[in-house]
Each structure stands twice: as structure tokens, then as C-alpha cells.
């Protein structure tokens, strides 16, 4: 007899995705101190809505969309952006946290998570053209960071 775990339960898969979900949450909210709360809320929603998840699609994309949705439903926390009350390890990521507001998530989805503009747009709830513009803006920002650090070294 071979016992099998319950594959309809997505909790285990969500736990294995946690590092990537936390990274996406950081890119979305850019507030290190609320990343884990945001991910936790989104994952609890994911567990509750698991029967609605289409097994043919990517779980991480669905979870990313839930994180974005939870974030958009929290206007108070969105307006408190910029207060540095961070207490977890994310506070040291100046390259990411220094990006102009709203562009980090587009760069992450397209360049790091290998989503198309259309997929990223669907997750973030913005037009694909805005995703393309955000990705360019992020690259230009990173290029300036490279140039600045090269100048400082010189």
C-alpha cells in the first residue's frame, strides 16, 4: 500500500513558494515591515479560494494576483508608504526599494519571473503598455545605479 498526500491541498505548495511570494510582495508594497502580513493575508485567501484555482495554470501567478489584490484593498497601508519602520531583513535591499513607486513589480514579473507583458498586466491589473513602460523605467533606474556606483568607485 502506498499512501499519498492530499494533492488538492495547496498549503504545502504555497509554503514552498513563500520566498518568491515575499519577494513579489516587497516589490508591490515596497514596505519591508508589512511584507509578511501581506503574504499571510493573500495565502489565507488562497487556501479559502483553492477550489476556484484552475490546476492548469501557474499557482504562483494566481498567488501574485491575490497579493496584488490584497494590497489594493488596503488603502491605509498604501498611503503610509515611505515610513521606514522595517524590522525584517528586507530593509537592506536599497536597489529594489529605491525604484520609483509602482515599477518594481512589473520588472520582477517580466524580467525575473518570466511572465509576458500580457500576463504581468493581468496580475497587476494594468495595461500591457504600462508594464512595458515600467520595465524600461526600472532598467533605466538600474543603469543609473550602476553608473553612480562606478563613479563612486572611481
Amino acid at each position, binding site marked *: 500500500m502506498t*499512501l499519498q498526500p492530499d494533492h488538492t491541498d495547496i498549503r504545502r505548495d504555497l509554503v514552498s513558494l513563500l520566498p518568491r511570494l515575499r519577494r513579489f510582495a516587497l516589490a508591490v508594497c515596497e514596505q519591508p515591515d508589512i511584507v509578511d502580513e501581506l503574504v499571510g493575508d493573500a495565502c489565507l485567501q488562497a487556501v479559502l479560494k483553492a477550489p476556484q484555482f484552475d490546476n492548469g495554470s501557474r499557482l504562483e501567478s494566481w498567488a501574485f494576483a491575490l497579493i496584488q489584490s490584497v494590497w489594493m484593498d488596503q488603502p491605509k497601508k498604501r498611503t503610509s508608504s515611505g515610513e521606514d519602520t522595517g524590522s525584517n531583513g528586507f530593509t537592506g535591499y536599497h*536597489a529594489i526599494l529605491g525604484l520609483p513607486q509602482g515599477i518594481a513589480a512589473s520588472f520582477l514579473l517580466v524580467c525575473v519571473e518570466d511572465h509576458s507583458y500580457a500576463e504581468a498586466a493581468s496580475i497587476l491589473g494594468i495595461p500591457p503598455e504600462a508594464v512595458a513602460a515600467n520595465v524600461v523605467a526600472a532598467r533605466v533606474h*538600474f543603469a543609473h545605479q550602476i553608473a553612480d556606483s562606478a563613479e563612486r568607485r572611481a
Partner: protein
Amino acid sequence: MPSSHNINLECRLSVALDGELGDADKAEIEALLAENGQQARDIQENLRNANAFGISAFDEVLREPVPLTLVRTIKTATPPRKAVRLPQPQRPSLEFKPTRRHVIVGCLAVALFAGGIGFMIGSRPQMQTFAELAMPVTSGWLEDIATHHRVFSRQTDHLVEVSASDSPHLVDWLMATTGVSFRVPNLATDKLEFLGGRLFSAAGKPVGQLVYRDEDGSIISICFARNLVGNDQNMAEQIRDDIGLIAWHRDQTDYVVTGASSNANLDDIAAKVAGQI
């Protein structure tokens, strides 16, 4: 300050870098690169470098340890119940109108039944049954196993009593002591190294333990004991603070796979153990 022409070129080169251009646009960009020569190639190179810098910065974030509280919140989240309410046929209403005779007969029946129960309790012989004499199995056996794992998994120099190099002796010893016939599961495909085993007690019974170590140095162990508790053949995951336990019962033997509660693959490992042990 970059000119508007350069900004436009930057955008198009960036989109090209993402592979989002159609064939016609690609040809146009290639012509543009040829037309603008070195300047366009410099912009393209800058974008590539910036892209690599950004990816590297985001990859660094993955190294941050995930808080255990977050793992526990998700692992212990209650999944939705799959309750399906079927339409029920309307029940015919039963009218109950007891007569005086029915009431008297009912009262007598209750009095006789209660008296019989009282007589049986009062005249019970002062002899204990075997079940009463036998040591009760506490429901806290999983706590014993979790506590044991928490203590011994940190003794990195004394993890096992009999090492993996002496497996035949280990198997003979644990089989004779616990009464459980088993094989040492090979979990090399899960990158788990078998270290050996030990014996301890949980709920007053001998428990055999096989100890494994993963690539990160975390300890995962398989515990087994003869008829410790239940008859639940399904795997059940439980969390005791930082320890995750997956328990099941089969062929009069209880098995538990223990590891860190943050280990997402514990149930996969347990499924493999169930198939091999």
C-alpha cells in the same frame, strides 16, 4: 540628459530585449541598430547590464529566511469545507398525542431501565479488567515524539546511537525491541543522507527512530512503534511549534515522520517512507 529620440530608442530596445516585438518590429530595430551604430549598441548594452543588475538584486531577496510564524499560519490555515446540501424530501408531520395509558407505560419502562443500570453498577465485582490493568496510552504521544525530535536534532555530534555504517545491527536491534518489521528507506533522491538510528520511549512504549539529514543540515526522522494509538490509515500533518509531524497507522504499527515545520516537502517524504518502510 537623454534626448527624446534616445528615450524612444531605449523603449524599443527594452521591448526587444523582452522578446515582445513582432517580426516586422524586430527588422525595424535591427535597421535602427545599424543606422544609429555605436550609440544604439551602447544603449542596448546598458539595458542588458541594468537588466542583469536588477535580476541579481531580486535574486538576493530569495536568500532571506522565511519567518516560521508565516509558515505556520499557512500550514494551519483551515481549508474550505466541501459541504454539499442535497435537497431533502419534505417529511410527513407525525402527530404525537400520548394517551394517559401511554404515559404510565413509558414512565414504568424508564424506571425499570434506570433501576437495572443502578443495580449493575452497585453489584459490580471488585475485579479489574485487563484493559484497566494495562498501561493507558496517553494521547500525548505525538508531543513526546516532537519533544524528543526537538532535543536530539540539536545534538549534532550525538544524533544516533547506532550509525548508518552498522545498519544490519541497527535493524536487528530496533526490530527486536519495538516488534516492528521494517526496512531502512532510501531517500537519496530527496537528498537525505541516512545517519543511523536510536531507541527512545513515547507514551510508555519503545519507539524506533531512523535519522536523516538534508543538504541544509536539517534533521528529518522516521519514528515507529507497535500499536501505539490509533487506526487512522490516512496521513495527518500536525505542527508542534517548530516541529512538523506527519503520522499514519498501518498493519498495527504507528509511523511518524518529523522535521522542521517549515519543511514544505515533509508530506512527500512521508509518502515515500510509507511506500518503502
